[in-house]
């Protein structure tokens, strides 16, 4: 059966991280999209309506908070997991209030991230 809810959008300005996450989640069977900045990210959200977004906070131009707000404005149901380089407590708190479900501090363990994504977006085949 073709799955309807397995789309993940990866938003990070760092190429290596995008490729890594792409690799990890494709292997898991998810459909992945990548965006290097806010404009690309919102474009993909509009066109492909991902189920879950892995969102880096420190992105040049439109920052993570702003992207998060806009994604939620487009579709309140999109689940967002944020990624930070270090624990900026205030910012993390703010993203929670804006509807982010959880956060990962870089460098994260990909097994943990994988498990978290699976929990929030079970693959339905």
């Amino acid at each position: 059966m073709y799955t309807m809810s397995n789309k993940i959008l990866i938003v990070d300005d760092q190429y290596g991280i995008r490729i890594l996450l792409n690799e990890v989640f494709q292997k898991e069977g998810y459909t992945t999209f990548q965006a290097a900045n806010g404009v690309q990210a919102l474009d993909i959200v509009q066109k492909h309506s991902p189920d879950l977004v892995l969102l880096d906070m420190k992105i040049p131009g439109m920052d993570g908070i702003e992207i998060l707000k806009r994604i939620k404005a487009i579709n309140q149901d999109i689940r967002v997991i944020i990624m930070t380089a270090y624990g900026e407590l205030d910012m993390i708190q703010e993203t929670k209030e804006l509807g982010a479900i959880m956060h990962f501090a870089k460098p994260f363990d990909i097994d943990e991230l994988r498990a978290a994504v699976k929990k929030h977006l079970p693959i339905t085949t």
Partner: protein
Amino acid sequence: MQDRLTMFTHNNKQSFLLTANPPYLLRLTNDGYITYASIYIHELLGYHQNEVVQTSFKDYCYFRDYDHFIQKLESVIATNEDYFELEMRIRNKTGKFQYMQVAATVLRSSFHRKIEGILLIMRETTVQESELEVLYNEKLGQYEALVNHLLEAVVIVCGEKIVFANQASTCLFKANHVKEIIGKSIYDFLHSAHYEIWKSEYMKSAQTVGPMEFVWKTVCGNTFQSEVMIIPTNYKGEQAFQLLIRDVTERKKTERTLIEAEKLSMAGQLAAGIAHEIRNPLTALKGFLQLMKLDLKTKSDYWDIMESELERIETISNELLFLAKPRSTELKPISLKKLIQEVSLLLETQAIMHNIIINKHFPNEEIVIYGNEVQIKQVFVNLIKNAIEVMPNGGHIFINMEKDGGFVNISVIDQGCGIPEEHLEKIGQPFFSTKKEGTGLGLMITYNIVQNHHGTISVSSQVNVGTTFTITLPLFDETQYIAK
């Protein structure tokens, strides 16, 4: 004559004549000739009474003062008055002018108030003080009060001898009395580094120089930094120098602290930036490594080596992040005695391995500070670890704690190799280390944490004797805590 005088004194309210004793009297004709001089005039001016009679009063007066006298006389006559006072310079028998207070009364006849002459009563102003003298004394008084109450030290140096010192200089030189300064040589106080320049330049200067930075020694031999103005002046006819000395030790200290704080905050920002940049590529590297391990299933040691190297990078970036603003805002009252006890217990195994004994001297009372427990622990771990590392051949480490007003001082004293003076000021700077394995971050983190807790660190060291780090932290103030 006597009648006239009585009448005069009755008529005039303001009169020093009453006190003019003996009466130095002169009577003048309308055109200024002396017709009478009291016998006492000899005492006053050295002239015999007969000697001056028939001579003109003008001849005894300093010309400007005589003009002044005539002007006043004319104006008094014009307004139909008959009394005025004036200060004049009168020439005595030796030819010198002498200041005199002169009271002049226009003598008039009972009928028609016809002018019959002028009566002069004189008084030495050496007793009374001349106007100039009054002014001078006033100025002198002001000057003295000013100099003595000035917060800056003022000393006058004549030759090499200090001939004057104001009150403030006793504070500056830590003397109990100005007597401990006056009479001494300037070289007793001036730092020897300035002897040459003092002799060769400043002592010959004809102009005010400064402000210059000088180091001085106090009575007890301590040194302090100052700014000095050197003002050439005279002292009893000899060339002298007035020195204005301002203690700038505190200011220098504040400046240094500010620079240090600035450096630390810069380093903090830099560290956070670097850490951030390191963490991103690290995420990718670690992630791929994890993936490859799974995929290739090759049992290679290389993966583990690469992983441990990446761990190392991660540790360093964690340490760097410590420098940024405290991430955790979890602040609470901390029992310092308990905390240090725990830390020293933690490091005891390491100490014993190096044959080091940790001695603790704590006060009996409870010492409570307010802050981040993890970070404060980090401070003492760093300091005690450093102390252990500089004593490879064993010895004693002393941890002394004492209350000092609203603060607590904790000293960590080692018996290590010490830090040479030229390195002392670099302590706490980023990436400065004297240890082979040191990253130069530990003490910097320590400084940063202490600073964030509104405390200070001072370090003193003697090569081959040891080093003392003293941390001063504000004690926990319960009243303020509740207010928050």
